[in-house]
């Protein structure tokens, strides 16, 4: 008994509408059961109370004059004080460094055309220029300072135009220029003995956000390659190299950073001859970088471990030598897989830079603390001060999270 069934393709239907308006959404998501309803109401009440009292404090009760009073020292610490630069104005040095950075960001945007580079460049240039309009009187913040800040916008534009309309700037050159700018910044801030106008400024007077950023930039750019090297070393088949890397990682990871910083100040002078350069800041920078590199190494190693062994096998089977297999096949995939962990480490490093208070450096946090201690009339307003400091830190760390999120999305092309 044969039945002829004609084949009719099923019509595709639109997906069911489960969310009908705001009420439907609320019913499905907020009040789907009695206990969810109770939770929603309680959470709403708590949020309203927190917002109410929080905003009331921020806008009415809090006295933010302490932040205004501390002013530029948040950014530069004691850098431009009479003690640091007796008899001359050093303010232009960090400002010129900032100009170089914005020009560099402009170039990065111009060469890559990347919307992320654009956002970062415009944000940094815009904020720098906006600082020129701070409501201080001219004798507190002179015209020269304001003009140099405003010049960040033309510097940005010049960098962008140079990259956009000439073939001088490539991505590789931007990286090289970045290193150069960092060195120039250090030289400008430190000063060169014997050069008029560049009188040396002891690093003891460096401080504020500038100090945190310098340490973070140096730490981040160095700890990643060092960490990669350590991770590869730990996976090496050469026993001596492997043991050295394991010992390094375990020692630096096993000791609190604060202890390492103490030791950098107390032990290193004992271990080296007197004429060994012992700038405490330099040692602190080295310690923070190595500490971070030890964690970085383990992040990267995790990424390498997670790769399918077939990847390296396929590369080797094609005749690629081991180092090219690592460089072109394993590392790019491993690093991509652990970007969240790497950026987490960057953020931790940035926050850890405030531990240099241990060696008596006045970073963003410590400068606030010292100010309060020296000006007891503001003792009641320490809360405002430290909330402000926290917000500044948060803005930078959130910026890093945002960049990492964008990078992940950009790299996500074709992945899984």
């Amino acid at each position, binding site marked *: 008994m044969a039945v002829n069934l004609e084949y009719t393709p099923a019509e595709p239907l639109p997906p069911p509408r489960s969310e009908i308006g705001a009420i439907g959404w609320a019913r499905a998501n907020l009040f789907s059961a009695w206990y969810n309803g109770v939770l929603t109401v309680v959470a709403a009440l708590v949020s309203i109370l927190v917002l109410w009292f929080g905003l009331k404090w921020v806008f009415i009760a809090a006295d933010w004059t302490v932040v205004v009073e501390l002013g530029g020292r948040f950014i530069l610490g004691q850098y431009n004080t009479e003690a640091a630069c007796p008899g001359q104005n050093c303010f232009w040095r960090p400002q010129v460094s900032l100009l170089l950075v914005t020009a560099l960001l402009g170039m990065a945007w111009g060469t890559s055309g990347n919307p992320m580079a654009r956002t970062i460049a415009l944000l940094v240039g815009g904020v720098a220029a906006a600082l020129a309009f701070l409501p201080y009187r001219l004798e507190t913040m002179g015209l020269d300072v304001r003009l140099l800040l405003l010049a960040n916008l033309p510097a940005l534009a010049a960098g962008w135009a140079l990259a956009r309309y000439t073939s001088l700037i490539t991505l590789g050159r931007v990286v090289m220029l970045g290193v150069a700018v960092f060195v120039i910044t250090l030289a400008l801030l430190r000063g060169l003995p014997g050069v008029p106008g560049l009188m040396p400024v002891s690093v003891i007077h460096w401080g504020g956000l500038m100090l945190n950023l310098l340490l973070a930039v140096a730490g981040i750019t160095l700890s990643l390659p060092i960490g990669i090297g350590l991770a590869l070393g730990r996976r090496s088949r050469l026993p001596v190299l492997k043991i050295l890397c394991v010992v390094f990682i375990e020692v630096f990871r096993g000791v609190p950073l604060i202890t390492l910083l103490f030791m950098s100040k107390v032990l290193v002078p004992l271990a080296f001859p007197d004429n060994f350069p012992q700038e405490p800041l330099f040692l602190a920078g080295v310690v923070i970088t190595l500490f971070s590199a030890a964690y970085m190494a383990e992040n990267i190693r995790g990424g390498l471990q997670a790769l*399918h062994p*077939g*990847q390296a*096998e*396929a*590369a*080797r*089977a*094609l*005749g*690629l*030598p081991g180092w*090219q297999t690592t460089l*072109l*096949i394993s590392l*790019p*995939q491993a690093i*991509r897989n652990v970007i969240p962990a790497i950026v987490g480490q960057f953020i931790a490093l940035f926050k850890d830079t405030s531990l240099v208070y241990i060696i008596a450096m006045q970073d963003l946090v410590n400068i606030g603390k010292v100010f309060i201690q020296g000006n007891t009339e503001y003792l009641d307003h320490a809360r405002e001060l430290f909330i402000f400091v926290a917000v500044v830190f948060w803005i930078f760390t959130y910026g890093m999270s945002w960049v990492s999120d964008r990078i992940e999305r950009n*790299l996500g*092309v*074709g*992945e*899984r």
Partner: protein
Amino acid sequence: MTANGNTAAVEDIIICHDVHKWYGNFHALRGITTTVKKGEVVVIIGPSGSGKSTFIRTLNRLEQHQRGDITVDGIELTNDVRNIDAIRRDVGMVFQSFNLFPHLTVLRNITLAPNKVRKLPMHEAEGIAMELLDRVGIPEQADKYPAQLSGGQQQRVAIARALAMQPNIMLFDEPTSALDPEMIKEVLEVMRELAKSQMTILAVSHELGFAREVADRIMMFDEGRIVEDQPPDEFFNNPRHERVKHFLSQIL
């Protein structure tokens, strides 16, 4: 005499003599002695764990043999790194799980080794890559990433990637085992075409139809040994070993 009638090719391109391999205490290869002539197509079958994959992986030194000698294309496989790299340039390999590089486009997957190892200029390598993509039937996928392709397409890219090094020998390690039936067909089609082009091929595969059609010899591995090594007709109709009949009855 071979099924393809290429009786002229008599040069032995792979010579194995008494090859042994252990994983810890497990004796994976227990004295493999065989030769493969240039242009020959050898299909290797056998139960799981019988050493067939291990065997072809020793041929390009992805696994190290611990006893015996292997000579591939005139080069003896020793610990000498230069020899190993020379052999790997000469021997293409296709894996069960494709192992394409997920962070590179299809085109870049194929041009990578010719560019970095053979030092071909990029435009030349790309020319070869496009020709090969054409040959495996997916030139339009060149700029996609591996994850955007179907399994069958990925395996065809993997074959093109191996061919781009212009190898004299191709090793296939269960190339269709991870594929849906429709995709098996498209991959076998490419392999069939390759077999007819005088390429020396060693393929671990349980596609018996394919083996019957293109193989010059079928080898069966069991417990680290070659238990049968015959032309397809003999192998299927008149196997010398009881073990072969039993295995065939299980997978047919």
